[in-house]
């Protein structure tokens, strides 16, 4: 980590993530966005649920952090933000946390369009508990709780949150660092509910279970799958099956 990003880390912490974990990259990209916007981190509140991704801000960020219950981060954040609108409130949590157990809070917060930034670290599984299926796991994928392959279609979280009424909705991958940082900056600045579905590969669980190879190869696998939505236009449904379409899906009117 560069010297200027270290200033945002709580003294004494060692980052807990596995080798090649997308969350480690994401942590750095979030701090880079904050640094580039020159936001005073003391004015910010970071709220997370339970799971690997929830550890991104807590205890690592040297700021106010509220590490809550599984699925409930957005509800906690809503109370803090509504009572003190001056708190720049950012929720950082996993896909299982935000979309499965906390899915109802997610769509209702988007509907209310309260000024929260929600960064969903999407590793397409429950990393912390051993790689079980998530509502974001692609159909057919084998996990410890779907040994015959996931029988269900995954959520398109951007479509979901967009339909629920969020102001800003985007999807980028940690393998697309510069566009992702720009997107986080936008999300932080926009008033209203902003949501980024961030593809954050999990080599330890998802990568190993799918024999994606080394952490580097796992990242490469996702890098190759992610395409910008502009490039997705000419592709057939079959071709798109294999792809993760990234970009802005609601740009907050900008």
């Amino acid at each position, binding site marked *: 980590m560069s010297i200027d990003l270290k200033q945002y880390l709580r003294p004494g912490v060692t980052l807990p993530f596995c080798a090649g974990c997308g969350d480690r990259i994401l942590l750095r990209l979030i701090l880079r966005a904050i640094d580039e916007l020159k936001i005073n981190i003391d004015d910010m509140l970071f709220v997370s649920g339970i799971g690997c991704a929830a550890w991104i801000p807590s205890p690592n960020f040297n700021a106010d952090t509220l590490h809550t*219950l599984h699925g409930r981060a957005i509800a906690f954040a809503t*109370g803090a*933000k509504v009572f003190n609108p001056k708190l720049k409130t950012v929720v950082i949590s996993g896909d299982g946390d935000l979309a499965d157990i906390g899915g109802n809070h997610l769509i209702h917060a988007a509907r209310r369009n309260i000024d929260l930034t929600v960064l969903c670290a999407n590793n397409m599984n429950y990393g912390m508990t051993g790689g079980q299926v998530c509502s974001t796991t692609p159909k057919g994928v084998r996990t410890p709780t779907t040994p015959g392959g996931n029988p269900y279609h995954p959520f398109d979280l951007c479509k979901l949150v967009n339909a629920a009424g969020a102001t800003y909705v985007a999807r980028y991958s940690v393998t697309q660092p510069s566009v992702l940082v720009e997107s986080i900056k936008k999300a932080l600045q926009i008033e209203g509910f902003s949501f980024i579905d961030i593809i954050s590969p999990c080599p330890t669980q998802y990568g190993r279970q799918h024999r994606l190879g080394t952490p580097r190869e796992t990242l490469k696998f996702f890098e190759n799958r992610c395409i910008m939505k502009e490039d997705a236009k000419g592709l057939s449904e079959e071709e798109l099956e294999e792809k993760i379409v990234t970009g802005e899906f609601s740009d907050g009117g900008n």
Partner: protein
Amino acid sequence: MCYDHELMAGASKRKLKSALSANSYYFSGDEAIAEGAIAAGCRYYAGYPITPATEIFETITSRFREIGAVSMQMEDEIASICSCIGASWAGAKAMIATSGPGFSLMQEAIGYAVITETPIVLVDVQRTGPSTGQSTRVGSGDIMQARWGTHGAMPIIALSASSVQELYDQTIDAFNFAEKYRVPVFLMAEEATAHLRERVDIPEEIKLFDRKKKAGAAPFGTEESDGVPPMPTFGEGEKLLVTGSTHDAYGIRKTVDSLAQEKLVTRLHSKIMNNREKIIEYEEHYLEDADIAVICYGFTARSSLFAIERLRKEGKKVGMLRLKTLWPFADRAISNVGSRVKKMLVPEMNMGQVVGEIVKYASCEVVPYNQVNGEIIHPHTIIEQLRALL
């Protein structure tokens, strides 16, 4: 109004600001709770409508509009209590009211409030159960859930009122206790009192206690093994670490440290239990020469007092002790009365909850009376029960 004299020594006498002027009012219990909350400084409320607590939500929402505070109708009770905890850390005195089904949904978050030492006030207007039960009818079946409902249960404070006036007073007490001890405080109301209309006298001045703050101090630990640390607020540059995992005095997670676990749990327990004499309040009637004592709480105490006064006119030596605090339990008072009387009668609108605590501490014979038909226990029923024991 508040029981803890030491607590009040540190409190400021405040003019009622943006609350009702001193006067007599005619309120339902639910309205009185809403007014008590506003008088206590509650400025964040989150809820999800449920009978028989809905009127608290509606009243406080319209009153909040007048004073410029915010209430939120959340998507469920889980979101409601979680948002209250978030608001509390943002500096609010926050309240939530519900009934049995919602109280059940909140149990996980109650444990989070306990371990993070977050002051919140939770009103449970009890109705019959289990499950949906009879939603408009009275019961008292959540007393044990208040104490033991969340996993790894720790002491909390739970109050019980017998009149509309007392619902107003105890709501204020609940906020004072929550701020003083940094615990969730439960007001265990009952449908019968919540929907009753009675006179409420609102005094010129009330005593309020606000959470202690000390910049830079450890927010989750004290030198003493039963202390209450000061509580900072988000946005003050304290770089707070609030977590539901076991943590040290500064909030750093200690997930495999046996000593840290023991130290935290012991303090969470002791900060309430070692102060229980300052928290517990009860009321005695006609106990001086009584042979039989009725031990009661909530609405049932009204019927009990009526029954006792009737029997006293016949010269029967009966008395009663009314618990105004359910948790921590009034163990010493019960053991004291238990050594003076021959028998205790414990009428409850459940299948026997508080009676189990009484049996633990009373040396005399303890007789339960349980009524679970959704009706209040009538005075004549208590008279009958007492006659059988005389």
